[in-house]
């Protein structure tokens, strides 16, 4: 009975994602091409940072997506633990490495920006440290979900970690307001509107939408694969 329930929802999900994936891939590629043109060629240099400002067009969206991705993991964890949603565990397995990837991109690009601008690749201020913690939470989630022979036990353990780690998200967001940090305060999501000139804000938001599409695309693809994998494992066990 549990098996039937498991197949019902993922099968519907799979049909939906198969229908979505081609147009989603197409849109992502087109938007990325135009986004890179906006970010690297069309947009002006910053009055202080010069061309180094262009790192932001990848760095900031990656940070948003890494945080949003972790929020997704937590929501999936809750729906697994509370409602036992069969698809949640599979999607969490699919999403965690993608989120970790965006988090790594955020940390690396930030480091490359920090060296010429601040004079240091890395400092242990509250924003950078909490973002590094987010990366480790992702790695913990990936490791924990694969740590048991029965995948269901790993799913549960990882779901608990995802929920516990969600405390870190407001800490990341407000670290720059609560404590003195070297990292600059928020420029876009702040009271009083963005403090970025439109000519730099537009490419930033464009890249944010583009990279979000890329995230969704990768998570959908990987969820499909996880569904296939779990089916195969179940079939092998029954054989």
């Amino acid at each position, binding site marked *: 009975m549990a098996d039937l329930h498991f197949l019902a929802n993922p099968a519907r999900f799979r049909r939906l994602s198969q229908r979505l994936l081609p147009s989603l891939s197409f849109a992502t590629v087109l938007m990325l091409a135009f986004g890179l043109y906006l970010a690297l060629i069309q947009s002006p240099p910053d009055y*202080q940072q010069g061309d180094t400002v262009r790192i932001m067009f990848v760095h900031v969206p990656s940070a948003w997506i890494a945080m949003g991705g972790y929020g997704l993991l937590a929501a999936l964890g809750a729906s697994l633990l509370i409602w036992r949603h069969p698809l949640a565990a599979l999607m969490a397995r699919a999403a965690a490495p993608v989120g970790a990837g965006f988090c790594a991109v955020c940390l690396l690009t930030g480091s490359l920006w920090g060296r010429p601008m601040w004079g240091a690749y890395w400092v242990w201020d509250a924003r950078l440290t909490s973002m590094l913690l987010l990366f480790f939470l992702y790695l913990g989630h990936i490791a924990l979900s694969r740590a048991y022979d029965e995948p269901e036990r790993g799913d549960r353990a990882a779901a608990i970690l995802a929920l516990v780690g969600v405390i870190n998200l407001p800490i990341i967001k407000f670290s720059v307001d609560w404590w003195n940090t070297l990292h600059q305060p928020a420029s876009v999501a702040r009271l009083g509107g963005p403090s970025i000139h439109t000519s730099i804000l537009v490419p930033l938001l464009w890249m944010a939408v583009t990279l979000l599409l890329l995230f969704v695309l990768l998570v959908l693809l990987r969820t499909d694969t996880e569904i296939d994998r779990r089916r195969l494992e179940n079939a092998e066990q029954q054989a």
Partner: protein
Amino acid sequence: MTPKRKRLWLVVGSLAVLGFAATLVLTALNDNIVFFYSPTQMAEKKIPPDRRFRMGGLVEAGSVKKSADGQETRFRVTDTNKTVEVVYRGLLPDLFREGQGVVAEGSLGADGVFVAREVLAKHDENYMPPEVAKALKEAGRWKESK
């Protein structure tokens, strides 16, 4: 209460407790989490000489002076309330300039001058093309609303 309800409240309750605990820990550790002290905080803390710490604020306009050999820089860091004199030997980051944010690591000398061993530039949250910055300065509206 259905099992689902029970699990929902268990999760919500655990998160609330966890959030409360995290708040307490972070509040208690506040002094260790701040990356630097402002000149006002430095005055409040009465930090003994030779203790290493970081201080930060704005480089006061007109305060930057280079030594004759060009290796030593003296400047004042201000938070508009209190001001601290800083001396530093070495290369400064590109963004270091008057009116800009800066974070220096070092210790207080006996004369109250902060001897910096490392100086980092702090960037603010404003991004704009050079022409816009120039226009704002010419219109006398520089940094008024930011």
